[in-house]
């Protein structure tokens, strides 16, 4: 088992203002498996994704990724986890604006020490970015930017890819194309994919779906 989440809770705020975003969520994911996490706005699905990716830490519960207990890692440990084990694609602002497209694609892989120029070139070609490599992110369209983000995520071939509404800011046609490219490449790299989406259409493309409601798994 690649990922094992057990009884995770997360509370934001304190005292009167406190919001229990996750109230004991458990799930697991095998290597290469794809899973859609759906739910209403505020159901806690993005928070869960952040916790799994080592971007934030839970108030209780356990998250094991490839045998490592994520919840007990310190800041540096979580940074290492993000670098080596996980690739994340967000809804927006995925890219480093000061770096060119080519450097954005290879950035995380190089951080992780796993950069492979040939694979990077392949990725760029597959994502239709070959002619954009020397541009800066702000010179690209939204769909292109998300493709770069996907390319960057896959460049290091991480065991787990986390995607948080990766096509949420795109129009339908672009979104489909981007999703298609991502799914194809994820399967090729045999990475597992956990995707947060509110789109049933997207969710249907995954191996499994989990629905979150009010911080709990509903189905």
């Amino acid at each position: 088992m690649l990922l094992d989440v057990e009884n995770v809770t997360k509370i934001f705020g304190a005292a009167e203002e406190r919001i229990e975003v996750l109230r004991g969520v458990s799930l697991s994911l095998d290597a290469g498996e794809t899973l859609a996490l759906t739910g209403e706005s505020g159901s806690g699905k993005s928070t869960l994704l952040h916790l799994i990716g080592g971007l934030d830490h839970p108030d209780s519960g356990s998250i094991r990724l490839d045998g490592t207990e994520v919840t007990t890692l310190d800041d540096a440990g979580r940074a290492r986890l993000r670098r080596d084990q996980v690739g994340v694609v967000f809804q927006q602002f995925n890219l480093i604006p000061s770096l060119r497209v080519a450097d954005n694609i290879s950035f995380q892989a190089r951080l992780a020490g796993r950069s492979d120029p040939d694979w990077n070139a392949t990725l760029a070609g597959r994502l239709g970015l070959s002619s954009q490599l020397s541009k800066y992110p702000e010179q690209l369209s939204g769909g292109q930017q998300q493709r770069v983000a996907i390319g960057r995520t896959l460049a290091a071939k991480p065991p787990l890819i986390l995607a948080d509404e990766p096509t949420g800011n795109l129009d339908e046609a672009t979104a489909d194309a981007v999703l298609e490219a991502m799914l194809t490449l994820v399967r090729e790299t045999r990475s597992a994919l956990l995707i947060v989406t509110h789109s049933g259409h997207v969710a249907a493309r995954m191996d499994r779906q989990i629905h979150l409601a009010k911080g709990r798994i509903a189905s």
Partner: protein
Amino acid sequence: MMRAGLQALLSHWTRNPLQLFTLLAGLALATALWSGVQAINAEARASYDAAAQTLGEARYAQLRGADGGPIPQQTYIDLRRAGWLVSPVLEGRAQIGAVDLRIAGIDPLTAPPGVGTIALTNGEIGDFLTGAGQLFATPDTIARIGETPDLTFLPTDGIAPDLAITDIGIAQSLLNAEGEITRLVVTSAQPLGRPPLEQIAPDLVLMAPQTDTDMAQLTDSFHLNLTAFGLLSFAVGIFIVNGAIGLAFEQRRQMFRTLRATGLPLRNLIGLLAAELILFALVAGTIGMALGYLIAAALLPDVAATLRGLYGADIAGTLTFRGGWFVSGLVIALGGTALASIGAMSKLARLPILAAGQGRAWAMVSSARLRIQAIVSVALLLAAAGIAAFGSGLIAGFSLLGALLIGGALALPVILDLLLSAGERLAKGVTAQWFWADTRQQLPGLSLALMALLLAMAANVGVSTMVSSFRLTFIGFLDQRLASEIYVSTETAEGGRLLEEFATEHADAVLPILSAETDLAGLPGTVFGARDHATYRDNWTFLSSISNPWEAIHAGTGILLNEQTARKRELSVGDPLTIGEATFPIAGIYGDYGNPTGQAILSEATFRGLFPEAEATRFGLRTSDPDALQEALIQDFGLDAGAIIDQAGIKAISLDVFERTFAVTTALNILTLAVAGFAILMSLLTLAGMRLPQLAPVWAQGLTRRALGRYELIRALLLAALTTLVAIPLGIVLAWALLAVVNVEAFGWKLPMYLFPLLYLRLTLLACLAAALAALWPARKLARTPAAHLLKVFSNER
């Protein structure tokens, strides 16, 4: 409508208090530095003027005893009764209370206007005149004197410190000088038909008003330096204000659009913005004036000590509040704000009503903009070179400074961009590559602050170089001019002959200082006759000369000329110079700092041949035992101690002076760097919010927040260090402009420039320290940003 508009505009500041603070603080600091320096200048000038006025030397001719001694009171009466309108002054020092007080006794009934300018009201004059013992002094002096049972001290302004003005009768008794007068002030308007001086008082000599003294020249030079410093500091401040105004403008674009769309005419909008800025300028200007006052008050004792020591000019060590100074400071604040807001205002005027509401407060370095900046900068630097080569006059000098400063400042982002691109290309690791690229991306946001740092650094380098060069030159000059251990003067030529005889036996060498007034290439000047002695050969240095100038002089085949005259008449080594009937080729040109008039040197023999009537009354004496020689001169020869000048004493005073000058310069250095550091801090804080979207992806991909904070700090240090790389050459060019262009235009002599690498290293470290301190807080803040803040960047959803 207008009110609502103003309210809307001002609401921006309540939502962005930090920006408001930046704007006000930048302007206040700029005004403070400028006005502080101006206040020091004004105070010092007012003090000399007061000193010159109270004693009347600057405005009126004087009669003094030919022997330098006191004038009998009867001579004064004789002169008055012969129709000479003269007024007696008795000067001396007496220990009164806790102060070694300089006492000036005057006669208010005969004193011409401006002598003894003390405010006497009708009721007081009787007490002043008739022995009740009234003395006028500054409140500060009176406070230091303390209790004096027999004397009444009355406070007055506008006179020199440690000086008391009193009636001549009281002065005579305080100084134990009954019937004595030090000098007589000659009123400018004299009646018809008065007999010549020789007939009435053959023992007196008439001396012209000392309007153009060496002291005035040197102090002017010092003040010019301070003024240049003030100007540079102000430029630093204006960069900060410009940045703050520009940012506020960008952030309020949307508001401008809305206001205009709802019917506020453009003219009114500009009017409102102008009103807002005037309000800020007045507030910040007032704060700045208060700060400037504090700066001046803190530095003034050092400045006072500097000038007192260097030029013997007494200036008060305390600051008087001057209304004119305050108003001029506010005008400067308003002018500076106007200057800083020109760009934003003109942009607003051209803004189409439905322009994009959200400006790009953040943008990649636009290569087009950089190119324009580079072109303007190069044009300005070329203009500066042109002015340096062909310009003349003080205006040209200051234009040169301005062109250099602005050109240098505009060049900075271009140069930094090039350096950072190179760094990015050369970077090996991915983090390093990102670091260089990211740093380069910060340039537009930081460039104003960095320009401020550049100007501050350049100003510091420039002024420090200038002051240090001044010091080296001046000390070298003193060594050259005061090579003899002891200098003595006699009142008469007869005394001179006797002294020379006496000294020849007691001193190792006697160097008579023979001089005559003459015409030098059409300018009034003085020629000296120098005895053939190693003292001259060993100590004198020349700005330019033939290989053995002294040999030519003593062979009678050459003349030495001072720099001022050579410059004014465009003479150089080898050119002929006519003295009286004889013509000599110029064998050497020497620096003659602080002397406004022409000067030339011949050998003693040649000189005596040309001026047979000239006799020496001043002598330089070489000796290995100055104390014994002084003693012998006083005890055995009967020379007055006041007629002996001890060279070591003069040098000690000069050195002390320069230390104090350094104290002032160092204080100003630290202040300007602090202002620049503040600019960096404000820029970083302003950028911090906008930086999250740039940093969040890096963090998400595996860098810790701590690492990000560390890079933030390193980035500031790197930028500061790179900026100093540009600043040091710019500062050196500035120093050169001050020393070799402005100084020559203002005073006629060029100061040689020396370089001080250790000084620059220290300044670089200080600049980096300022930048590091400025970046510390933002970096710490970044290192501790909650993950939630970073995550918010990626999604609107939690």
